[in-house]
Each structure stands twice: as C-alpha cells, then as structure tokens.
C-alpha cells in the first residue's frame, strides 16, 4: 500500500443557519495516497466541492466553515492551521485546478505572468530560472510553442489550452497533492479525453496524489484508482474503482450507476417511412459584423441539409461551435437565416414575415437547456404554460384547464400551478418547460440539450418522460445534445455536426457499429468510460 499523503478524519463542514441542512458534509473519512487518483463523486449539492476547498482553507468563510474533524497533511492539521502556514502550502505542496478554465485565469495578465507568480511567491529563483521552469512546465502539458503561450492572454487560448495552462500552474512546484474540481466538465468530449490523459500521465510521472471531484461516472471509470461516493454530505461508499463501479453495494451508488445511459444502441426499430415533417435545405448562417474597416465573421451553418420524419427522433450531435444549437434555432425560426430553405410540412417558412410566422410558431415548440434561465421568474407556473395557447386564441379559462392537465402529464402535482419557478428543482423546472412546449400541441419538439444541466438520476427521469410523451402524442423530435450516451438512448437517427456541417447521418445502431466519418469515430472514442459498461456486461 502506497504512502498516505492526506487524510480526512471525521471532517464536518458547517453551513450557515437557514441553509437546507446543518452541515454541508458530515464525518467524512478519506485517505489520499501517493500516486493514486481518488475520485470524489456526487450529484450537485452533495458537498463535494466544499470538501475540496476545505483542504486548502478556501471555504467561503465566515458563512461556511469547518465544524469539526481533522485534515492531516505532513503531520499538520490543516483544519486549524493559521493563514500564513496555509499560504505556504497552497500552490507549493497542494495544487488545485478548477472547473471553468474561462474564468479561473485573470483576464488581464499573460499566462506566463500568472505561472510566474507561483514561483515568485514560493521560491527565491531569479527571473531567468523562473522563466525556464515556466517554459518547462508549459511544454510538459503539451502546449505548442511555449514561448508564445507565455506571452498570450487567456482569451487568446482555447478552453482546453487554458485548462492545460492551469494544470501547468498547479504542478510548477511538484506538489504532493493535486486537487481537481470538475476540471473537464466545461470542456468538449474530445478535449476532455485529452485532459484526462494528461492528468493521468503527469500524475504517474511524479507520483502525485490526485483528488478528483466529478459527477460523471464515465470520467471516474477512466481515471480513478479509488472512488468515494458522496450523497447529500454523507460518504456512502468508498473503495477501489473496479469494485465500486463493478459491484456497488450501497443502494445510492447502484441507482446512480444504473442511471448512467449505456453506451449501447437501442434495440433496432422498424425503419420510419413516414413523410418528412421538417426539411432543411442548404441552410446557411453567419454571425459577426462586417464593417467599413473589416470585421470578424463566424460561419455557424455552412449549407446544412437534413430531414426529420414524422414520429421520428433525430439527434443532432457535435461539440461546442459545431452549429447544432444554431440549426435548432433556425428550424424554430427563432433565428433568421442567411440562405436556404426550411420546409415545415412541405411549406417553406424561412422567408415568412413575423406576422405570417405567427400561426406556424405553434407547430414547432422548443425545450431549452438551462432550466433556471428559461422560465420567467415572475410568472406563476400555470400562466407560464397557458400563455402560449392564450396568445393563439384559446380562451384563458380553457387554456388554464388544459395547463392543469399538462402538469399531470409531465408528472407534477396539481398544486404546482399556483407556485413560482424558483420553488422548483432543476428537474421539475425542465418538466415545466416540457409542459409549456406541449401546451400548443406542436407537431415538432425541438429539445436543445434538455438534460445536460441536470444530475444523472434526474436526467434519466426527464429522458424517460420525453420518450413517453413522444410516443403518446406522436411527436417528431429534434434532439440536440453533446452527450453520445444520451443520443444513443433517445434517438432513432443521429446527425453528427462539425464546424457548421453535417458530416454524417445514419440510424443510431448503424452509426454506433459502423461510423463512417473520422470525426464520428473520434467522438465515440472520446466518450469517457467508453468500455467500462461493456466490461461489466461481459
């Protein structure tokens, strides 16, 4: 058994009075060993990030503080260590990387300066020696042209590059422990695979102990040596990664793992031969400004053609910037397009005026990604749902009656009608969003990443609801997602998008077993924990 680097002993983090529970986490026991990656996994609100921050003394005090317990590191108890002791440890002996590479770096300083800062704080190296060390680390995280990178500002790097720079910064002084708080959650799946590989590589090289905070079992399967599962502040299960993932003992762990969509295609369904309900023909869209003195133009859609059959679910899959959301919005005509046709039931709606669009709008409805921002916080649920039908001429009384029935249909209590959005959880809000979309009896439902902001167990419920409603109401659905696991579970056909173009369209099973385009193959290869569930099945 390798050497213990850090040990949590009955760690309890107290929340301010008035929070939903007294302690964010209670009585956490955890041992982090040299050369091992320990994954702390939990859903949102489980307290996993607070555990990470408490180790470095970065809790948002005075409201949130360590209530009791010890954090043992090199013979010291970090829970009670004074600030100057903690400062000597932070960055030097314990490094940390964060979720959002966009905001974790100071936008006004060059990357080089921000790395250099660590050396200036903790060492007495001269300027040249510091620069050499910074370049060395930038090189070790495989960033191209280190001398150019250190002169760059954060906004000039991509998300993946920024996260690499963060990792370089955290490892400058060869810390014994690296804390990674959801370091790949904000990244695209192929970038995520590279970053995970990089962390693994550097960690093996230096024998660093890693505490990896995540909510994603796929990532756990890829990177973890040991796993600890956190449920609402309580550690319910821990052990070796193989054991916990392969044979979970606690019911919560079992339920979580069961909720992860399998990376297998659905049972083959009979081919859909219904007529097309939506057709996009050579749809083009560019964003940006053209000025007298030039300007920047981004090509979002480069002549996309796709069809959606009646009663079918078509998945639009791709990474950020691929144009999948733009296409979804173009089809709903929430976005004006620059060229091409959009046929809804055979009629072109691309060039209709606002007034002409009105009757068309109710035939295509949308479910949005962010359940928090997509409901008007000042409207009661019943009004949110009934607003659409009332606009389209339904009598208010009748519209509200139907809204009540819809609440029932999406699995919410009738009493929800009189309440406001902030009283609901993310999953419940997404149900409300679905009810709102259904209120107009649309032919086509466009769902733009409807489950990507939800925890995995809630995600499973919402997906089940969508499937059920679609079957019952004979809807056609355009399902935008970046998550191949979800796409495989929900879609009849999948269209893969890259840089504003559809590179491949095929039935789900076909695209899974026999992807044609190299990019499709790369996407499948990058899915975290790709082979884990296969192993379990065999």
């Amino acid at each position, binding site marked *: 058994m390798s050497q213990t680097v850090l040990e949590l002993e009955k760690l309890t983090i107290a929340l301010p009075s008035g929070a939903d529970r007294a302690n964010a986490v209670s009585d956490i026991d955890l041992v982090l060993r040299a050369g091992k990656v320990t994954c702390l996994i939990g859903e949102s609100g489980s307290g996993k990030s607070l555990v990470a921050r408490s180790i470095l003394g970065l809790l948002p005090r005075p409201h949130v503080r360590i209530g009791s317990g010890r954090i043992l590191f090199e013979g010291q108890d970090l829970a009670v260590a004074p600030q100057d002791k903690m400062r000597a440890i932070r*960055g030097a002996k314990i490094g940390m990387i964060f979720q959002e590479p966009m905001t974790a770096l100071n936008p006004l300083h060059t990357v080089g300066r921000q790395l250099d800062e660590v050396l200036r704080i903790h060492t007495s190296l001269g300027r040249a020696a510091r620069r050499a060390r910074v370049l060395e680390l930038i090189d070790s995280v495989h960033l191209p042209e280190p001398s150019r990178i250190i002169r760059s500002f954060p906004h000039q790097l991509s998300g993946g590059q920024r996260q690499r720079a963060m990792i370089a910064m955290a490892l400058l002084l060869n810390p014994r422990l690296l804390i990674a708080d959801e370091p790949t959650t904000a990244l695209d799946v192929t970038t995520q695979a590279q970053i995970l590989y990089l962390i693994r590589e550097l960690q093996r090289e230096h024998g660093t102990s890693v505490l990896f905070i995540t909510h994603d079992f796929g990532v756990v399967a890829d990177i973890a040596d040991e796993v600890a599962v956190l449920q609402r502040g309580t550690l319910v299960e821990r052990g070796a990664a193989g054991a916990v993932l392969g044979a979970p003992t606690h019911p919560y762990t079992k339920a979580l793992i069961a909720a992860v969509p399998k990376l297998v295609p659905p049972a083959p369904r009979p081919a859909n031969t219904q007529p097309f309900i939506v057709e996009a023909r050579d749809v083009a869209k560019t964003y940006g400004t053209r000025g007298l003195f030039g300007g920047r133009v981004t090509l979002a859609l480069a002549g996309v053609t796709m069809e959606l059959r009646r009663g079918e679910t078509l998945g639009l899959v791709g990474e950020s910037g691929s144009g999948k959301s733009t296409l979804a919005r173009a089809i709903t005509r929430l976005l004006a397009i620059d060229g091409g046709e959009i046929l809804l039931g055979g009629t072109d709606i691309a060039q209709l005026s606002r007034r002409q669009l009105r009757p068309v709008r109710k035939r295509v409805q949308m479910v949005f990604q962010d359940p928090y921002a997509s409901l008007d916080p000042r409207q009661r649920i019943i009004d949110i749902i009934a607003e659409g039908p009332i606009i389209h001429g339904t009598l208010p009384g009748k519209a509200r009656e139907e809204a009540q029935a819809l609440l029932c249909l999406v699995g919410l209590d009738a009493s929800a009608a009189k309440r406001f959005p902030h009283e609901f959880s993310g999953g419940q809000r997404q149900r409300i969003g679905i009810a709102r979309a259904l209120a107009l009896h649309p032919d086509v439902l466009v769902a733009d990443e409807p489950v990507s902001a939800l925890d995995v167990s809630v995600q499973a419920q919402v997906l089940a609801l969508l499937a059920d409603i679609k079957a019952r109401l004979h809807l056609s659905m355009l399902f935008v997602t970046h998550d191949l696991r979800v796409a495989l579970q929900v879609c009849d056909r999948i269209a893969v998008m890259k840089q504003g173009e559809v590179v491949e369209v095929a039935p789900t099973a076909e695209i899974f077993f026999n992807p044609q385009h190299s990019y499709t193959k790369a996407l499948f290869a990058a899915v975290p924990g790709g082979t884990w569930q296969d192993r379990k099945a065999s």
Partner: protein
Amino acid sequence: MRFARYMGYRLVTALPVILGIIVLNFLLIHLAPGDAASVLAGESGAATPEYMDELRHKFGLDQSLGMQFLTYVSNMAHFNLGYSYRNDADVSSLIIERLWPTSLLMLTAFGTAVALGIILGLVAATGRNSWRDNIISLISLVAYATPGFWLGLMMIVIFSIGLGWLPTSGFDTVGAGHEGWAEVWDVARHLVMPAVSLALFYLALYARLMRASVLEQTGMDYVTTARAKGQTERRIMTGHVLRNALLPIVTIAGVQAGNLIGGSIVVETVFGWPGIGTLAFNALQSRDLNLLLAIFFMSACLIVIINLIVDVIYVMLDPRMEI
C-alpha cells in the same frame, strides 16, 4: 504598430462627428429668426435698408447658403470662431482666456473625484460591512443626494463668512500681485471650494461604483486561483482585483467627464470663477450667439477628445479589447 493603426482609425472616425457638430451649429444659426445684421440694427435702434445690405455684404450674409456654409467650415478649420459684438472681442481669444481656469477646475475636481472615489470604494469593499464600510456608504449617500450649488453656498457661509479661512469667490486675490509660489498658493485657496462642490457628487458615485466593482471581482474564480497559489490577500487585491475592478470605472468616468462641463457652469456662477461656464452663462443671457456656438463647438470637441482618451486607456488596461 497595431496601436498606431487603431489610433489612426479612431481619429478618422472622429472627423465625421466633428463635421456633424459644425453642420448642426451652422443650422442653429440659420434657424434662428433674423440674422446678425438685424440683431445689430435692432441694437442700434434704427437702420436704413441700405445700411442693412451693407452689413449683410460685410458679413457675407448675401451669399448663397452653400457658400456661407463653406465659409463657416473654413473659418472653423482655421479656428476662426467669429467675433463677439457684446464683449467687443474675438471669440477665440475670449475662450482661450477662460480655458485655463475652467481646465484647472475641471481637472482638479475630476482627478479628486476619480482618485478619492477609487480609494474610498476599495477601502469600503475590503472591510465589507465593517464600520469603515458603513461610514463611507453613509457619507457617499449624503454627498450623492446633495446638490453641488447648495453645498457651495453652505461652504461659503461656513468657511468664508463664518470661519474666514477661504476666499468667497474669484480666481485669485485681485490686485495682490502675488508671484511664484505665493500665486500658486493664492489660486489654490480660491480653488478648494469650487473643486469640492463640483467633485463631491462624482466622488460619491465612484466610491459606490468601485465598492460594487471590487466586491464583484473578489467573487471571481481567478481570485480563488490566486488564493490557491498561496498569494497574500493584499497582493491579490493590488495585483489581481484592482485592475479588473477599474474597468467599469474608466467607462463611466469617461462618459461623465463631459457632464463636468455642464456642472461647472453652476459652480462657476456660484463662486464667480472666471471660466467657460460663466462665459457661457453670460453669453446665453445676452444672446451672444457667436460666442455661445463657439462654446458649444468647443465643448463638443472636448467630449470627442475625452472619449478618445478613455478608449485608449481602456485598450491599455484590457488586453481583450481587439484593436
């Protein structure tokens, strides 16, 4: 190189704005009923039509509107701003004479407001909800709500009439004949109260803005990153937060630098400060159109220049600004 190109681009795009101001000025003159000849004739009591024609010919008013416009533009381009018959002096020399006191007042007030506002805001934000914060918030609330002219009058009552510490009005002591540092001291004593009454409102505004801005920035992720590096709180504040927090202040201060000209009219009148403000006020009362328009033109140009300076500062502060 890129910076030079950006500056060139900004200067070129400023030209149409200036031209627009000139056109607007010209139209204002000609929209007003009557012309300079009838004004002069009216003032002298009576005039023959022949004398009026002669006057019109002398001022070029008998030419076509297009010709007159060209003459006007060319005059402007040569900084020939016309003649003030009221003051019996060249408009440009009148303005130049008043420019120095006004600039001194504006720059002092503006500098004080920005510098002190930033410092007070920073002090308030770093001791959030402490007694320091509460006192600064209270003072800025009061200063925010107090009209500048009232404050000026009250200061005259207290510091000049009551305590006799400071002079009530003027730019310097008339006839004292101070020279060197004695003169500087004399002007400074005259400057204190006008500058304070002009600055206080803005000072309060910037203090509140800065406080909010600093608090917003301290919640950002990069601050946590800096803490996780082992940086001290003081260095986090000075090295990371301060510059980020300054960006919104620069934007707002730039917009408001123009307002100071307006504000200075009231304050200059209260304190008898011989600046552009009192000049404009007098010109307005005596319908000295030439002078008024020249002041209008000059302050518009000043605002264009200030905007340019603000943009340059912004580009220097924020590398994300694409130039």
